């Protein structure tokens, strides 16, 4: 359970790590939009080159990104299989009996693979180089215009950061309860359907009870330290826009605009 690469923060000291979280969030959104501008392989090539440079600057290893990509491989095989039967455009590449493989199917699948790969690299880069707390802080700042419309942006950001904070705690708790119930003869792997339901219940119920308990305790602890919902508050840590943020944004906007022009012209 501790080997989840997706969404894990990797503490390193790099150009990308030091960027303002707001820059990274905006860059991610722009790039995700750019991926869906249909200019074929040229577009993916441009984004790909940009990401490879960013990846090198971030000091993350390529194998780490590959690890995040691995779980989707199964889905890709599945997609290829479906495309082979459905898409019937382009030239016939291969004929087996009555079945024809069209070049359109292959190209479509490669498109999907590339898109998915790029999307995963982009999101992994964001979460791997930004501390969860900085991420929520950036999100809160970006949402702040909505506060004028009475959207509780601070509360939303606080909830996100609390949820992120409790993921490892809950995993640990689940493992502990799992072990305790295993000591009482619970077998999660074998047994009849009824026994399995019982086994899962013996994990879920205590986990719920202790989660509610923890939530209560946390609420009390926050109130004891003067937290008031909806109160105006200042920040200890200030986000700062630097020159590298400027460069990054210019590059990303350049890519987006460039791809749109390519498509229109």
């Amino acid at each position, binding site marked *: 359970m*501790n080997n989840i690469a997706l969404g894990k923060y990797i503490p390193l000291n790099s150009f990308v790590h030091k960027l303002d979280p707001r820059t990274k969030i905006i860059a991610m959104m722009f790039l995700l939009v750019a991926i869906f501008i249909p200019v074929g392989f040229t577009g993916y090539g441009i984004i790909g080159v940009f990401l490879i440079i960013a990846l090198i600057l971030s000091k993350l290893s390529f194998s780490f990104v590959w690890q995040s990509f691995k779980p989707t491989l199964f889905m890709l095989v599945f997609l290829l299989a479906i495309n082979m039967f459905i898409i019937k455009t382009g030239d016939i590449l291969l004929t087996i009996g009555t079945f024809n493989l069209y070049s359109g199917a292959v190209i479509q699948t490669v498109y999907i693979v590339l898109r998915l790969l790029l999307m995963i690299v982009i999101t992994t880069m964001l979460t791997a180089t930004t501390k969860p707390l900085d991420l929520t802080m950036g999100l809160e700042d970006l949402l702040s215009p909505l506060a004028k419309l009475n959207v509780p942006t601070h509360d939303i950001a606080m909830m996100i950061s609390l949820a992120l904070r409790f993921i490892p705690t809950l995993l640990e708790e689940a493992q*502990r309860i799992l*072990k*305790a119930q*295993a*000591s009482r*003869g619970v077998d999660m792997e074998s047994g009849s359907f009824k026994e399995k339901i019982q086994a899962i219940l*013996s994990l879920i119920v*205590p986990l719920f009870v202790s989660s509610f308990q923890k939530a209560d305790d946390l609420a009390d602890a926050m109130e004891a330290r003067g937290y008031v919902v909806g109160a105006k508050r200042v920040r200890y840590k200030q986000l700062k826009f630097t020159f590298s943020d400027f460069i990054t944004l210019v590059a990303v906007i350049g890519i987006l605009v460039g791809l749109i022009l390519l498509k229109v012209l």
Partner: protein
Amino acid sequence: MSIHFEKVDHIYSPNTVFEFKALEDVDLDINMGKITAIIGATGSGKTTLVQHLNGLLLPSKGFLTVNDFTIKADEKPKKIKDLRKQVGLVFQFAEYQLFEETLIKDVAFGPKNFGVSEQDAEEIAARALVTVGIEPKDFNKSPLELSGGQKRRVAIAGILAMSPSILVLDEPTAGLDPQGAKSMMELFNTLNKEKGITVLIVTHNMEHVLEYCDEVVVLENGKVIMHTDKKEFFRNDQYMEKASIDPPVIIAFKKMCEEHGVNFNSDVLTIDKLVNEILKKRGRR
């Protein structure tokens, strides 16, 4: 019937940045029929050590034998359920594992997992609950209605209902009031003396070690640095000083007397005996 560790290592998350060696080269023989205390600072590997006893954790290197079972590196022991029936492991803050609607159902859960019929399981559960001091009128209450100490008793009953021959307790008295802690220790003492159950207790409470335990195993940074009987352990207070463990009051008192030139026999480990000794010394004067 034996518990025997041989060159056991345990490494958490091997080959990652989070790699951590929790146990190193542990050789240990636990004497059956005794109450053994396992002590050591936080993070010294106590919990890791006891979780090997019923196969929840497997050694990274070396092996251990518990009764007829062998627990080896990277190989799930056969009939692990039978092993878990024989070795009852009570976790730290065990009250969090209760999940059934009523106490009796929760305690019967263990025996039922080991193939006892519903009716027999409830009978066994009733007996276990009485053993830990829960009254029959409370059997159909929800665990959520009980106090923390009572919940812990129910959780312990849940383990006792499997009638283990070895009972392992990870800090069973943590967070209990002194009275509750004392009666909890009395319970383990009775189980040991009357039913001959081998008891292993992970604890930080030296008073309990002095009063109830027969032997002491000391862990430091994942290594067993001492395994001796209680008298020997308290005779030599160098270790306690080094590990900054507060000695039991009676030991501290004797030490202060010795500093003022009054010496007591090192067998004097209870208040009764100490009072007698003091009276004897006064009579002699």
